């Protein structure tokens, strides 16, 4: 594919190589603000996921990039050229929808060649390109079938081939895997990722599935209520969530309300927990501490930092690990989730009602500003 020959290596790319640049983009539907001043840079060849709950604005942002639904204000530039007001056909992208949107009365080959026919290329060239694309998505012998004769996963591959047929500079995927069975979804996830690496086509995928985003994306854009909460690699987003929303949406996290005390001390109920340095929070300020269930460790001795005497109130078997619900003792007891790997579980044979010492490593405790409406979890 001519457009993607120059794939840069893994090294951080310079910002001026920005492929797609979005500046203070907003979109309103009447009173409702679907996008509130979005700024985003996407580099050439990158695989980016827009992740967030339904109604967060991720699809609205994708459709604005495509030009299918025009933004209310702000700019979009593609390869340094302002396309804010350009119609979709002037924007050089291919798109795949959750519904596949395959033309039911056309064969697989005609679907894939739909955009090529319009380019008035010779028939042999088109036919060759169609077979090349069908081979690429692993459906070389399905050219004569109609979409209704294919499985969901096959239909989505055809849709992918159709989107790639005109060699677009940008591939947009709008929840492409959401309509598929769990098993097919996993396989197609890998295939799309491999295909994207091979072609080097800049790709944006919208998804509400955090696991999908973590496993596929080079960078994740986490969105909520029309704002970008965090942009980062899967590792950054998971391990160093910038906001409580990100922490809660990507992976599981237990939250504890507390009050900032010393330099690195937070009081939660009647416990003082040591945290990694928490700059930006004044002493006496209300905060929330976030802790991933897998970071909790069970120890023998209560002596040491952040070690709490707790009781197991419930055990939930989740296959490869067991999620324990822990309750502290005292007047206002803490409630925590702790994930125990299956082998640990086997060795120790924990049971509900059992007393344990839980260690909450200071490095794993993340501090966020207190949210106005603290959700009652777990």
């Amino acid at each position, binding site marked *: 594919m001519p457009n993607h020959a120059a794939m840069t290596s893994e090294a951080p790319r310079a910002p001026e190589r920005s492929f797609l640049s979005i500046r203070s983009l907003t979109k309103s539907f009447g009173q409702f603000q679907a996008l509130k001043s979005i700024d985003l840079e996407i580099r050439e060849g990158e695989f980016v996921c827009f992740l967030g709950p339904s109604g967060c604005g991720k699809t609205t942002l994708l459709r604005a990039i495509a030009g299918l639904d025009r933004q209310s204000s702000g700019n979009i530039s593609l390869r340094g*050229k302002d396309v804010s007001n350009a119609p979709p056909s002037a924007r050089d992208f291919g798109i795949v929808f959750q519904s596949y949107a395959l033309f039911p*009365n056309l064969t697989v080959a005609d679907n894939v060649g739909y955009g090529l026919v*319009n380019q008035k290329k010779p028939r042999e060239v088109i036919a060759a390109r169609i077979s090349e694309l069908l081979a690429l998505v692993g459906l070389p012998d399905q050219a004569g079938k109609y979409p209704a004769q294919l499985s969901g996963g096959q239909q989505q591959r055809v849709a992918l081939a*159709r989107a790639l047929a005109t060699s677009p500079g940008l591939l*947009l995927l709008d929840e492409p895997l959401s309509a598929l069975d769990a098993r097919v979804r996993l396989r197609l996830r890998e295939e799309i990722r491999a295909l994207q690496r091979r072609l080097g086509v800049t790709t944006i995928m919208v998804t509400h599935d955090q696991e999908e985003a973590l496993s596929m994306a080079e960078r994740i854009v986490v969105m909520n209520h029309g704002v970008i909460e965090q942009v980062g690699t899967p590792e950054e987003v998971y391990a160093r969530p910038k906001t409580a929303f990100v922490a809660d949406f990507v992976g599981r996290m237990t939250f504890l309300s507390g009050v900032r005390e010393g330099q690195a001390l937070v009081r939660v109920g009647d416990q003082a927990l040591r945290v990694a340095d928490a700059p930006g929070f004044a002493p006496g300020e209300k905060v929330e501490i976030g802790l991933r269930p897998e970071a909790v460790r069970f120890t023998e001795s209560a002596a040491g930092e952040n070690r709490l005497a707790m009781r197991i109130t419930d055990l939930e078997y989740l296959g490869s690990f067991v999620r324990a619900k822990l309750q502290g003792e005292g007047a206002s007891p803490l409630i925590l989730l702790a994930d125990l790997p299956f082998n640990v579980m086997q060795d120790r044979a924990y049971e509900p009602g059992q007393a344990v010492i839980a260690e909450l490593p200071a490095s794993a405790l993340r501090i966020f500003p207190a949210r106005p409406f603290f959700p009652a979890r777990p």
Partner: protein
Amino acid sequence: MSANSAFLTRDREAWVATALLAGLAFVLVLLIAVPLWSLLSKSVQNSNGQFVGLANFARYIATPALVVSLWNSIWVSGLVALIVVPLAFLYAYALTRSRMPGRGLFMAVAMTPLFAPSLLSAISLIYIFGNQGFLKSWLFGASIYGPVGIVLAEAVYCFPHALMILVTALRLADGRLYEVAEALDTSKSRVFFTVTLPGARYGLISAIFVVFTLVITDFGIPKVIGGQFNVLATDAYKQIVGQQNFEMGAVVGLILLLPAIFAFLVDRQVQKKQVALLSARAVPYEPKANARRDFILLAFCLVIGGLLIGMLGTAIWASFIRYWPYNLTFTLNNYNFANFDPQGWGAYLTSLKMAGLTAIFGTAIVFTGAYLVEKTKPAPALRGFVHFLAMLPMAVPGLVLGLGYVFFVNAPWNPLNIFYGTLTVLVANTVAHFYTVAHITAVTQLKQIDAEFESVSASLKVPFWMTFRRVTLPISTPAVLDIAVYLFVNALTTVSAVIFLYGPTTKLASIAIVHMDEMGAVAAAAAMATCIVFTAMAVKLLHLALDRLVFARYQAWRKR
């Protein structure tokens, strides 16, 4: 393709869509809005075209004969609704909630009145109960010419319309509700009054209003069998055609518009609620076996279906009879139309031509228009306006629209008045008259097509008209056929709108029926009506066959 030329392409696309929409809006304004405006303005003018405010309305109220017609129209229409809706409800109940044998056949039988001009049942009644009718004695001296005949004939004519609404309403039942009721050990009658009837109540309301409107605006039946009994529709005809009193005709037309608009508004409310009634999780109701219930319903349907067939059959049979009721031998003389009407068979051929042109042009405009409204993005205000115009004819009875056309096309200032009495005006008027149902059919079909097809096409730089031709239209062939057949059959059977608009060379079969009946050639009128019925049914059968063929040949993709 460079970005720049793509810009132009896309701009061209938006430009084309907007231009087509503007053209469509212009055509619909001309076909629908302007005639209605002409009617409105005529009602507040005197014969010299000067504005006189509500003087015409005051004169109407001060004329006792006209007020009597108003009252006659109201009680006759109400009575028909009261008779037809319960019968249609029970019939619909039998079709949807029983395991009675032959349900499909009974549905088809109940639809037969749709294939005939409304006045066919009036002609049949004349043969049965008229001065020479073989059952005249059953009326105990009362005359069929008058309210009795109107009510009976209108009941037949309205039955399929009420039935279709009620079948739809009763089909939208959640089987789970019945299972719950049964699990709670509820009696059958209580289930009927707490589940079935509330579920269908919107359909019942809708059916009552539709029947009322159909009757009050129908012209053919009171014309044929009304005798000295005047109603609004015949008043309008007399004022316009008989006395050339256009202003009073306009007033009557406006009065006729009121119940129709009211029914339209009620129906829209009802539609909204009906949709909300059935959740996506509802399970279709499967009636259980119940021999006694099925037997009673079968007996009922046999009686009603028999009456409907009898009404149709009497006129057809009578059309082949030499001299009713004295000489019942077979003859084809009544089909020698030249003996009864100067146009002869010409009227029938004109009808075929008119119906064919209506089907072709109507389908093309309706479907393209619905596509532009439903699937293109530019000019949202224009699209809303076009959709409004498309929905408007639903609220306008044919008679009223016909009056509007008379005032508009006949106006001396109008350069289009050269079209008065031509086939063009008849086709235009008929397309406008039946626009809404066809439009709704097209929109419903288009809504079922993935909304992202146009997005995908845009991303592939394929203009929308290409996708319309290559994908949307082929997928929609069955709906397009539906629309064409609907327009054809209705163009063939309509009387009320075109009665004011035909010219010396463009008399239609349905109008020839009215004229032959007026001259006393009832058998010839029946013969002409028979021709229409057979043609309409043949077209419908052809449609069913074609539908199968299309499915088999061109819609291979539907099969797995």
